[in-house]
């Protein structure tokens, strides 16, 4: 395929390197340095997609981030990306892309029928119809609309690419490498500041790449190259291309997305596809430039209607012609640069200028070159469906109300320029309220809210000399504040053409009898009539207009449409633009890959995984693990083809019969030291702590101030002023923060220090009637008889040379001990326990057996202490001190908490002694009552009682204490179960607690 629209010499592409690519299945080639857009235009492809609503043909409108049309599905390295802007995607060998939002093809799209019916689909039409019959919205209309909407297709394959994050601090962050960015970066860098210069595009230089100016006796482009080269060589400067600062957040934190490998056929090894930079900058210089505004006229969305600046960029950067017979339609001087560029390359443009008789250097030059200029002329409509073929033009009166005779002018593209809109997104995101500048008909930054300064055309300054002067000054001034240095650079001499005032006219009136659609938002098909309709219907706030018409809500976020929309609202409403106000700019400036925002925390790494020191042993011994928060705990140890039920029953039975060992490392552990430690515990726990002797442990429950149980556990007095607290696995972090809060904020007079030792100690619970035998063999140096180490006793000893803490505490309800050793010795301890326990038939047991053991003993745990229960509910009333005050005590006397029929934990046994009750079932009086069936309580935990060999559950039951002996039903409609049950005491096994004391 020949490149009919490529010029021979001009451009910055590398003509030595041809690149082949495919679009909609057809092969083409371009050059290194092309974008997909420039390569397609070079090949004469102007139709790339279809619009969102009316499926009108779509070509290219811009040459960068502002592009509303050219969205494609990209294929790269066996993966696909939806919604890629062809104007931003750099060409690489083997690139494949297809059009989106069209079927069966972009050339022949069935959806285009919408366009012929478009008068039935004005703004918000869907609010007025599709209501009958009632079920049709969800079943018929909505699926149809959903299918028609959307652009690209997401692949459900997992993303194979890697994304990284980087955190950086700097003195000055400069966003954009046009003349203003280069000048301020250079001035600041010379003055010793740490500078980051970010450029969104692959090439540095911004407008200098395409404008005909001289800076210090060089072309603008050469000057930019020189400055960039110098900056790159400076140790205090980071220069990044393909890097867009897309968000300006609080406290001068900005976020930049760097596209590292998107322009290559596949990502380089050890290199991420994209990198997200969190940058904390002392000062920010916003040099993001400006975007050309469209002019609005009939069918102004036809492929071939392009921004005049884009036409110039395609010419000067890529050597590509957007057309061979261009019509240039402008209300200002800048489009003349495009006209002159065409002419220099042997193409004769025609310029239509809405102004009657403007005079300036650049217009003079165009005239001198013999370019045909028609003043007081406008384009009324573009003609042609899939590509511009001609234009209807006419003379326009001085007051812009009356049109002359309509003439037809042949052309193959219309380059429009409606003047420039400063890119104020970052300033606005930072909190800057922005102000309307009447001179340029656009918003510019106002008082900065954070440490930000906007320079150049982003600040509404379009004159290069002034821009450079100001930017050098800003770079110097801001850096001086930080570095206290005063190294100045002299501002180079600038040669540029003087321009004159633009015309405050941007929307061409329709001639009588013509009903051309004049578009404002090109992607979402929002036309002038849509805005007028919204206003007519009372949607008058600019936010209502936006939401009702979807103006500016497309993937280009209204970069080319917002201001024209505002102007229209202000005209119709007869208000000045600042009174209409603009909608708020929010990050991101352009859409950012979600993978890049997330970074490396994907797959297995989406959350940390915490493992105990004995984890490898568990793995080797067929443990099946369960997630307990971010911890992994053995749930059971599988033997041959046992099920969970069989294994946990075996393990629990063995604890009741012989002895078992359980890894309890994950329990939270807090070391508490200080003369007031006992007083702290006394205030934190509901029971009394002042008289706990050294060498003794005690069970305690702590409340939140609202009276709800927060956590429970045992705390042991190791020394006079030294305690060891345990918490549940889930609440470990919260309890530590809780203690620190009271110590530091509420009771600073208490002399206590707390520190987490969860990870310092490995823990093993040895439980069962034979546990004392195991313990004695583990610690032959000490006497562990019931008298020497009674229930709730504590002793320290050494385990074959390893220091160990021994607690006689029990969660299983059996005679039990918990041994703690330093984490590094955890595995050693575990293996010793297994080795020595062998003769006593020791077996490891997991969390499932642990649950069984605690449930049948009626010990409450997380499923009962669920953040909604008070001590009474959990049968802990005996632990609530009447004498002393403690956290949350004052809340316990509330009406609902002391009600006679307050809920309480009870035991539940199925009448048939066979049917297990699913956890989460509810207890009711009448299984067949009509709905809503009043619920009396719920099953919080269920197990198979190994003691009695029948199912047993715990429940939190309304008026629980008076319900013992009652017959109820446990219902689980989800599992279609209705089970007749009897309410019993929650202490199903060993109600007197003799075993733990044996």
């Amino acid at each position, binding site marked *: 395929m020949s490149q009919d629209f490529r010029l021979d010499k001009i451009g910055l592409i590398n003509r030595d390197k041809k690149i082949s690519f495919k679009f909609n299945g057809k092969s083409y080639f371009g050059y290194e340095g092309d974008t997909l857009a420039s390569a397609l235009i070079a090949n004469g492809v102007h139709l790339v997609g279809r619009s969102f609503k009316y499926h009108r043909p779509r070509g290219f409108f811009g040459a960068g981030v502002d592009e509303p049309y050219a969205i494609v599905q990209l294929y790269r390295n066996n993966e696909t990306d939806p*919604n890629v802007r062809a104007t931003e995607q750099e060409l690489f060998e083997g690139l494949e892309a297809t059009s989106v939002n069209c079927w069966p093809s972009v050339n022949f799209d069935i959806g285009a029928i919408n366009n012929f019916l478009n008068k039935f689909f004005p703004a918000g039409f869907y609010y007025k119809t599709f209501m009958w019959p009632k079920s049709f919205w969800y079943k018929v209309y909505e699926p149809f609309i959903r299918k028609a909407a959307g*652009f690209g297709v997401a692949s459900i394959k997992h993303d194979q690419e890697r994304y990284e994050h980087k955190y950086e601090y700097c003195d000055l962050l400069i966003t954009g490498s046009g003349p203003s960015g280069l000048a301020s970066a250079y001035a600041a860098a010379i003055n010793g500041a740490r500078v980051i210069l970010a450029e969104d595009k692959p090439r540095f230089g911004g407008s200098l790449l395409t404008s005909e100016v001289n800076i210090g006796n060089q072309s603008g482009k050469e000057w930019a190259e020189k400055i960039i080269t110098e900056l790159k060589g400076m140790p205090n400067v980071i220069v990044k291309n393909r890097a867009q600062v897309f968000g300006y957040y609080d406290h001068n934190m900005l976020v930049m997305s760097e596209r590292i490998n998107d322009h290559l056929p596949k990502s380089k090894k050890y290199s991420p596809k994209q990198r997200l930079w969190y940058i904390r900058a002392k000062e920010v210089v916003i040099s993001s430039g400006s975007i050309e505004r469209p002019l609005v006229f009939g069918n102004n969305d036809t492929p071939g209607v392009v921004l005049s600046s884009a036409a110039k960029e395609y010419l000067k950067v890529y050597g590509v012609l957007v057309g061979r017979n261009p019509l240039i339609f402008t209300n200002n001087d800048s489009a003349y640069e495009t006209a002159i560029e065409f002419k220099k390359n042997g193409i004769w443009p025609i310029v239509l200028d809405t102004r009657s008789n403007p005079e300036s250097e650049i217009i003079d030059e165009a005239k001198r070159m013999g370019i045909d200029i028609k003043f007081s002329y406008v384009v009324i409509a573009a003609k042609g469906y899939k590509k511009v073929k001609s234009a209807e033009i006419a003379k326009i009166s001085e007051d812009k109300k009356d049109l002359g005779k309509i003439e037809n002018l042949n052309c193959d593209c219309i380059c429009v320029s409606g003047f420039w809109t400063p890119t104020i997104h970052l300033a606005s995101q930072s909190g800057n309220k922005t102000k309307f500048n009447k001179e340029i008909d656009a918003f510019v930054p106002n008082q900065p809210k954070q440490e930000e300064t906007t320079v150049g055309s982003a600040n509404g300054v379009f004159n290069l000399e002034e821009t450079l002067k100001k930017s050098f000054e800003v770079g110097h001034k801001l850096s001086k504040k930080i570095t206290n240095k005063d190294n100045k650079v002299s501002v180079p001499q600038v040669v540029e053409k003087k321009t004159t005032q633009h015309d405050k006219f941007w929307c061409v009136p329709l001639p009588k009898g013509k009903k051309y659609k004049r578009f404002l938002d090109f992607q979402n098909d929002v036309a002038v009539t849509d805005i007028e309709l919204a206003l007519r219907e009372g949607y008058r706030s600019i936010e209502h207009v936006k939401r009702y018409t979807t103006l500016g809500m497309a993937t280009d976020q209204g970069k080319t449409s917002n201001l024209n929309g505002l102007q229209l609202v202000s005209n119709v409403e007869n208000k000045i633009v600042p009174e209409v106000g603009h909608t708020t700019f929010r990050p991101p400036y352009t859409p950012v890959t979600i993978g890049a925002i997330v970074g490396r925390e994907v797959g297995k790494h*989406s959350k940390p995984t915490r493992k105990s020191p004995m984890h490898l042993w568990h793995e080797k011994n067929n443990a099946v693990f369960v997630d307990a928060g971010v911890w992994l705990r053995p749930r059971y140890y599988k033997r041959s083809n046992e099920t969970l039920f069989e294994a946990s029953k075996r393990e629990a039975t063995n604890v009741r019969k012989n002895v078992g060992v359980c890894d309890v490392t994950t329990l939270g552990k807090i070391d508490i030291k200080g003369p007031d430690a006992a007083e702290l515990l006394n205030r934190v726990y509901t029971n009394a702590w002042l008289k706990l002797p050294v060498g003794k442990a005690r069970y305690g429950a702590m409340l939140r101030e609202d009276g709800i149980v927060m956590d429970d556990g045992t705390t042991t007095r190791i020394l006079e002023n030294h305690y060891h607290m345990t918490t549940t696995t889930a609440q470990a972090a919260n309890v530590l923060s809780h203690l620190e809060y009271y110590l530091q904020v509420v009771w600073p007079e208490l002399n206590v220090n707390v520190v987490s030792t969860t990870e310092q100690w490995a823990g093993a619970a040895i439980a069962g009637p034979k546990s004392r035998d195991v313990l004695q063999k583990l610690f032959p140096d000490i006497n562990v008889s019931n008298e020497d180490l009674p229930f709730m006793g504590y002793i320290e000893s050494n385990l074959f040379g390893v220091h160990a803490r021994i607690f006689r505490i029990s969660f299983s309800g059996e005679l039990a001990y918990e041994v703690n050793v330093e984490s590094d010795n955890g595995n050693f301890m575990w293996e010793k326990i297994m080795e020595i326990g062998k003769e006593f038939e020791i077996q490891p047991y997991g969390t499932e057996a642990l649950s069984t053991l605690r449930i049948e003993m009626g010990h409450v745990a997380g499923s009962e202490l669920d953040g909604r229960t008070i001590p009474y509910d959990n049968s802990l009333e005996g632990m609530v001190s009447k004498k002393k005050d403690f956290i949350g005590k004052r809340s316990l006397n509330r009406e609902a908490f002391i009600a006679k029929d307050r809920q309480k934990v009870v035991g539940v046994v199925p009448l048939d002694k066979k049917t297990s009750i699913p956890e989460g079932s*509810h207890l009711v009086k009448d299984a067949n009552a009509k709905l809503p069936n009043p619920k009396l309580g719920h099953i919080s935990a269920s197990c198979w009682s190994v003691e009695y060999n029948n199912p047993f559950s715990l429940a939190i039951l309304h008026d629980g204490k008076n319900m013992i002996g009652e017959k109820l039903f446990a219902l689980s409609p989800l599992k279609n179960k209705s089970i007749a049950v009897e309410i019993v005491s929650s202490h199903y096994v060993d109600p007197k607690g003799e075993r733990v004391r044996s």
Partner: protein
Amino acid sequence: MQKYSVFNLIKNAFTGHKNWEVAWKDPTPKSEYDVVIIGGGGHGLATAYYLAKEHNITNVAIIEKGWIGGGNVGRNTTIIRSNYMHDDNARFSEFGMNLWRNMSQELNFNVMFSPRGIINLAHSDAQMNVFSRRGNSMRLNGIDAVLLGREEVKKIIPMADFSENVRFPIFGGLMQPSAGTARHDGVAWGYARQADSMGVDIIQNCEVTGFDVVGGKIKGIRTSKGDIKANKVGLCVAGSTSILAEKLNMTLPVETHLLQACVSEPIKPILDSVVTFGAGHFYCSQSDKGEMVMGGDLDGYNSYAQRGNLPTLQHVLTEGIAMFPFLSKLKMLRTWGGIMDMSMDGSPIIDKTHIEGLYLNCGWCYGGFKATPASGWTFAHTIAQDKVHELNAGYSLNRFHTGHLLDEKGLGTKTWIS
């Protein structure tokens, strides 16, 4: 009022849509109303509509500081559900579901209620049990709920992470098939249009600057557009509740926090249900336009700024990719934030106050959108009858004193922990 229908749409098409009437007028406030509702959001507009429709009280003004529907009704993720555990919440929200089902026809405004179902994913047996408790409770309250196993979930959302390389595998989920989404702006506009047609004055760009309280009774309000007399005033201002409460010398069990949400670029249909992640806070649905609508955690500190910070979104999207790995290749298009009136037990307040004639509607946390019709209906009843309806009896202010709390999550008073 002009009827919206396909016939009228066609008819108007031939006159260039020049004859559509305004959806609501832009009146100047009268000096006195029977009832003044402060707050032109979803709840305020619905309240005014039900005052007129159910109680024949039409001399009503809605006072809105900005533009109607500009608060949380226009800033949410459009989810509608009644999958609550506590009876008070379940009854209230299921009553609302019935209003949702008929809303488009009742309001003659297509609010696009789409009962596409919501799935809460579970990632452990323990979580399946917690969900069973809630699901069984729903069923016993007459609300639809289904417990799904891993394979059943996979059939509905095969694009979720069922691979080996997953931190928290999917065990199953709890689904409410009749839950869904609706077009948020349409809800506000639909109520506004009907309320306006029945005589309610919608006053926009009018800020309330003070209250007239005499002898423990409300007599009127002071606004930027002048004083307005009224013996009944309803406060319905979500995240701004504490600001107005301060003018009334009231301190409430409510804090204002920011919740962010975001959408991806539009893609072709891939997800039909609303799905919530069980190993963190992330939820996702796909809008009719094709955007993936995503939300999760609060920004985590008191905030009145309708703008948030990226780390929260990063955190939320991390969970998003953990649930739906395909999100990685999509691009985040738009982010926004809404300020939430977080109550101290996570449930709302619709009640009378110690000031006679002053009624309070707040504490919606991040569940306000789905409650719009039921909230409006019960608040209208409370105002009109000067007494709470049994549907909102549980939403009393006094519960923070008596201990009859409605804590669905069991998190207590740290409102910033979601």
